[in-house]
């Protein structure tokens, strides 16, 4: 990807977002909590960047930044070389056409009091197309995502979860976007429907030359669409590389665990991770993952690991990545047994 002359579709440079947690006591001070810290990645045009992590890992924050629903505290976010947080109103409007989104909850994403044809064509109307012309395009959009054209006159509650997600995709595609932000688009769906929507997304990408930012927590699902995968833990990218390589030779102990889980055939209890995400108000010193990591030692408590090359194009933030990649220790953490 280094030889590309044109700028990549998306380039994030040191993206950081902190929120203020209101004071716990009357006279306490509001405390900052980092949702995303120093996140850098690039997505070439027509490719998919998959972002994996648990809830609270900051992956949805990255999505909201790219959608300009939040502003970063530091860092830059370039889309086709343009800083999206330094746009004129006209540029912003053009950007809103270029970038669309599909979210997780097929129930919450559609305005419950709007008919399908209006839902699907609302973005077109927001960009100045008149109502009749816009709604005339509804059947075509519905057909594109595999919904019968007569569903145009139905309300969201008349659709199943999978159909609603198709509706959400049709809406996102209505303005011919170049970039789709897919934030857990299949997590709330039944397995068979999930497979349908995933294949639809892949088909749309090939047909319309779309660039995807795909966010999920299931590595197998994310991997199905992604060319490059980034793994987030507690607001930071801990591993970044070509999907195949990350999958075959994960170099971060956290990724190793996700890969083992995604394989889905490990007996119950064989892949374990002690504890839960650390408290964001009192994060551990050094490496944030060390409290749950079988490889952790004194170095990990002392220093935050920098991103470094594990292989060409494959970055990892772990002091012990060579041992991890070699699989020196089982993913089994010590069992959580109380005395």
């Amino acid at each position, binding site marked *: 990807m280094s030889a590309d002359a044109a700028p990549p579709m998306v380039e994030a440079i040191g993206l950081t977002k902190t929120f203020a947690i209101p004071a716990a006591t009357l006279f306490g001070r509001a405390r900052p909590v980092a949702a995303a810290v120093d996140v850098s990645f690039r997505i070439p045009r027509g490719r998919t960047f998959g972002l994996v992590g648990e809830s609270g890992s900051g992956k949805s924050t990255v999505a909201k930044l790219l959608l300009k629903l939040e502003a970063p505290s530091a860092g830059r976010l370039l889309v086709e070389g343009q800083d999206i947080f330094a746009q004129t109103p006209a540029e912003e409007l053009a950007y809103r056409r270029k970038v669309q989104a599909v979210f997780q909850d097929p129930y919450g994403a559609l305005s419950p009091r709007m008919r399908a044809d209006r839902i699907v064509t609302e973005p077109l109307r927001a960009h100045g197309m008149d109502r009749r012309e816009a709604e005339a395009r509804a059947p075509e959009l519905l057909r594109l995502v595999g919904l019968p054209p007569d569903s145009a006159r139905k309300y969201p509650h008349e659709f199943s979860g999978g159909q609603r997600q198709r509706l959400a995709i049709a809406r996102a595609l209505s303005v011919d976007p170049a970039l789709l932000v897919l934030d857990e688009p299949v997590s709330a769906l039944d397995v068979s429907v999930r497979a349908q929507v995933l294949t639809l997304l892949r088909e749309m990408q090939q047909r319309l030359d779309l660039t995807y930012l795909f966010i999920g927590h299931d590595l*197998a699902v994310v991997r199905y669409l992604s060319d490059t995968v980034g793994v987030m833990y507690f607001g930071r990218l801990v591993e970044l590389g070509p999907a195949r390589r990350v999958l075959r030779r994960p170099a971060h102990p956290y990724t190793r665990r996700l890969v083992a889980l995604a394989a889905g055939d490990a007996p119950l209890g064989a892949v374990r991770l002690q504890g839960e995400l650390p408290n964001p108000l009192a994060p551990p010193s050094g490496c944030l993952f060390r409290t749950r990591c079988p490889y952790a030692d004194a170095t990990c408590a002392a220093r935050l690991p920098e991103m470094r090359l594990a292989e060409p194009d494959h970055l990892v933030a772990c002091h012990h990545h060579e041992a991890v990649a070699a699989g020196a220790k089982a993913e089994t953490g010590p069992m959580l047994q109380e005395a």
Partner: protein
Amino acid sequence: MPHGEPLLAIRGLNVEFGLPARPVRAVADADLTLAPGEILGIAGESGSGKTTLCAAVMRTLPRTARVSGRVEFAGKELLSLPEREMARLRGRDLAMVLQNPMTSLDPLYTIGNQLEEVLRERRRGGGAGRLGSAVEVLRRVHLTAPELRLRQYPHQLSGGMRQRVLVGMATAAAPRLLIADEPTTALDASIQDEILILFRELRESAGTAVVIVTHDLSAIRRLSDRVVIMYAGRIVEEGPTVEVFRAPRHPYTQALLASLPRIEEEEVVLQPIPGQVPDLARLPPGCAFAARCPAAIPLCREERPRERTVGERHRVFCWRAGEGAA
């Protein structure tokens, strides 16, 4: 039954909603038995009737539901049991864990308040010896720093911790049957296993039988002894988990397993099931899956398939199941 007296026996259970003239059969002709200490997984998609089936057993269905059939639990017929006796059974011998750990706890009271309340209730009902203190309950579900948790409010706990608390509450009196309806769906993958392990420990320490309802096939595969697959309100396949996952006999089970993303070599493969789940109010006369089934023959569209035994405690409702390769 090869395992002696069953703990739970469901016979010809039907649950209908809607107008009698145009009924929606959420559960149709369900037969099911569960041995003491057995872990049974019920899998199926939205609208398959798995949740309704459990609610019928717990008698927590809305009043508009019309239920028929028999549900025998430890020798008692639950459907005709007076509400007072049912209430006594619920929570002591019959416990339940729900999907959403965020809304199952009252945000206004501490974990300790809520746990004590449950324990008091159990003791009054002639509590079993297992109960113990609130701290012990939390310890049994491996919650870290249990003394601290008792003083905390639900919002101070993560989803996984809350679900642990709820499992602890539900199983404080060592129930004979625990019904868990999508207990891990709202949780992160790394925490899901921790909750599943609790169910297995519960069986080992208290001999509790568990019915786990979920669309997460991997959870069922790794936890349960037996699995029931439901489609459009009916059981389509039931058998030992290992056998069903290794060699599924119903085309729907086969399609469901094929639609899971699997990592093979370096690629992820998945195969969607074409078409859609049928409308329960307008079911075809034959097999509900026929329209989506690659192996369907004309008979499948005309007549509902009968039960066919294909192995020990392994039954399938499919006309073509006997032919070996479907």
